[in-house]
């Protein structure tokens, strides 16, 4: 393919160094036991074999970011007062928006991580509200996706429409060959990012070599179960407390799964202030914590960890689908499984849910090909919305 480039292994760091002069470059490197995406620093090296412990979502959705800053011209609420001023005298406030994001490259993002952007976009780029902080970063970020040559036992991207050489949302697909990287532009933006003299035109045979690597990785993923109907199954199991108690028995509610998850997008908003100046921050939050839904009155709709795990799995495999044309909000990266301190396995929950739902609500009998009036009434309908008893509010 014209446009395909080749980057020699020895030149990777030099190229990233070159990009860093004009852009923010995130690349994976070792930090202790973990592999994390950090701003590229030649002295700290790269890690392009081991799979990153964390996802690269913080390139678009930082762990904590400033939404706005404010400064009081008089003492801020609760701030120490100067002589002649009173704490309630907060009659002036100036509010400012933060600065524009830097153009960014994420190098070596995994295909599953790029796939997860498909679940962020409809939320942050909604029909009614546009999250400007996300969108500006999204528009300013180039994704160079690294195809997986090997898969881990926790990988299941093929269950949820992913692929080891996923190009969805990617600008460039990078595949490691024996002596360097084949860089295949996917978008115009990707093509424009591949202009360095360090990049040579790729040899004709390299594309075939890359395809063989992709195919091999695909094969090693094994067969994916059919997840059709998983949303209806989870809705029908909503009130099955035994099922959720069982699934969540080992959960520590530590939130590791949510922080490492590329599709978890929830956040909190908090104000921090000192003297007359302050910021409003948006920070990653975790639905596995009971404080997440605790109301000021003391009421908590998800006070039990079973309810919180149900919400997490439900969100990814049922609720999100209803609002987004059947799109599953899981990219199959398996990080939640790999890093869970108590071995909660979302794959097993999903499989168990399908089995359990089938056991309590057999599918309606096949409809005879006859006029509707002659059709027998279907058996008890699947409790598709998961409501088994009437309860209003409380």
């Amino acid at each position, binding site marked *: 393919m014209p446009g395909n480039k080749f980057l020699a292994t020895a030149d990777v760091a030099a190229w990233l160094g070159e990009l860093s002069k004009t852009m923010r470059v995130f690349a994976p490197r070792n930090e202790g036991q973990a592999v994390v995406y950090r701003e590229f620093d030649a002295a700290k090296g790269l890690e392009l074999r081991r799979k990153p412990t964390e996802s690269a979502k913080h390139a678009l959705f930082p762990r904590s970011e400033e*939404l706005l800053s*404010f400064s*009081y011209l008089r003492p*801020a*609420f*609760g*701030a120490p007062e100067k002589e002649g001023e009173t704490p*309630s005298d907060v*009659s*002036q*406030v100036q*509010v400012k*928006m933060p600065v524009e994001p830097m153009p960014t490259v994420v190098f070596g993002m995994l295909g599953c991580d790029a796939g997860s952007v498909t679940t962020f976009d409809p*939320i942050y780029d909604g029909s*009614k*509200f*546009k*999250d*400007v*902080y996300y969108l500006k970063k999204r528009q300013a970020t180039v994704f160079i996706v690294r195809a997986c040559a090997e898969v881990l036992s926790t990988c299941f991207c093929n269950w949820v429409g992913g692929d080891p050489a996923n190009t969805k949302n990617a600008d460039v697909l990078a595949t490691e060959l024996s002596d360097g990287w084949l860089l295949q532009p996917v978008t115009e933006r990707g093509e424009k990012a591949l202009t360095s003299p360090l990049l040579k035109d790729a040899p004709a045979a390299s594309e075939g070599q890359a395809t063989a690597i992709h195919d091999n990785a695909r094969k090693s993923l094994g067969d994916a179960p059919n997840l059709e109907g998983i949303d209806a199954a989870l*809705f029908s199991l*909503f*009130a099955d407390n035994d099922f959720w108690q069982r699934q969540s028995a080992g959960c520590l509610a530590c939130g590791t799964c949510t922080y490492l998850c590329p599709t978890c*997008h*929830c*956040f*909190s*908003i*908090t*104000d921090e*202030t000192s003297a007359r100046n*302050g910021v*409003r921050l948006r920070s990653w*939050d975790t*639905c596995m914590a009971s404080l*997440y*839904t*605790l*109301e*000021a009155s003391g*009421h908590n*709709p*998800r006070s039990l960890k079973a309810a919180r795990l149900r919400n997490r799995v*439900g*969100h990814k495999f*049922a*609720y*999100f689908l*209803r*609002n987004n044309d059947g799109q599953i909000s899981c990219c199959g990266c398996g990080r939640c499984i790999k890093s869970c301190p108590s071995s909660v396995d979302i794959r097993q929950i999903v499989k168990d849910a399908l089995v359990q739902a089938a056991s309590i609500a057999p599918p309606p009998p096949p409809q005879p090909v006859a006029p509707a009036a002659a059709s027998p009434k279907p058996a008890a309908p699947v409790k598709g*919305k*998961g*409501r*088994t*008893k*009437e*309860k*209003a*509010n*409380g």
Partner: protein
Amino acid sequence: MADIAKIPVYSPDMANPYMPYVATLKEVIRETHNIMTFRVVLDDAEAMKNFRHEPGQVGQLSVYGVGEATFVINSPPTRREFIQFSVMRAGEVTSALHKLKVGDKVGVRAPLGNHFDYNAMKGKNILFVGGGIGMAPLRTLLLYMFDNRDDYGKISLLYGARSPEDMAFSYEIEEWRKTKNTDVVLTIDREAEGWKERVGLIPNVLLEMNPSPKDTVAITCGPPIMIKFTLQALDKLKFQPEQIFTTLERRMKCGIGICGRCNIGDKYVCVDGPVFSYAELRGMVDEL
């Protein structure tokens, strides 16, 4: 429901839905020992002039440096000299709000959420059942209907509070009573000296009132436990789920369907609500 496209979308700065309008407290009313009413005016005169909301819609009130919380706008769209919020002191933001004084600045992101379908209620009798601070969202629709009085049939209000001192809006109830074809029933939980109105829990008083469900829409709001038993009472009175509306509360942060915490299954209270019919609630997962 009113044409969805015409529901005003919050947009002080089209580019940023997290950026509040800066507003000034014009009037502060102490309603009860723990409820205060704040009347605010947006500092941007043009924005204030163009501010439009629907009964039932909410807003995020900020105390810069403390945080934001969600409250219903309880002034009706027919009275636009200020935007009113009634706030019960419960957590950090509400405690900070209660310490503010006239002239202080707050942030306002509003209007947010859906609203009562007052068009579909035209020509019907209206039964309001409010408990405590739950009277706030009802007040918006009540006053809107008073300002369009001929569009609606008989209006009945059952408003309950723990004690006479816990009754918000007490200074305007006489005026509500004087509005034509309007019945106001007040109740408190336990006998109190000098109290001449009803005594008893809201659902019980509602059963005693025995309102007919014919051509009637019931709208209820209050603490979760009160709503639960009020719905049971309405059910006994043969109100159908489609005739009953309520507004829900949930811990919220963004108010625009992104931050994730106010979901009930696949619905977000901040954008799909806060107003739901009982029929809609019965179709949702049971996680209130």
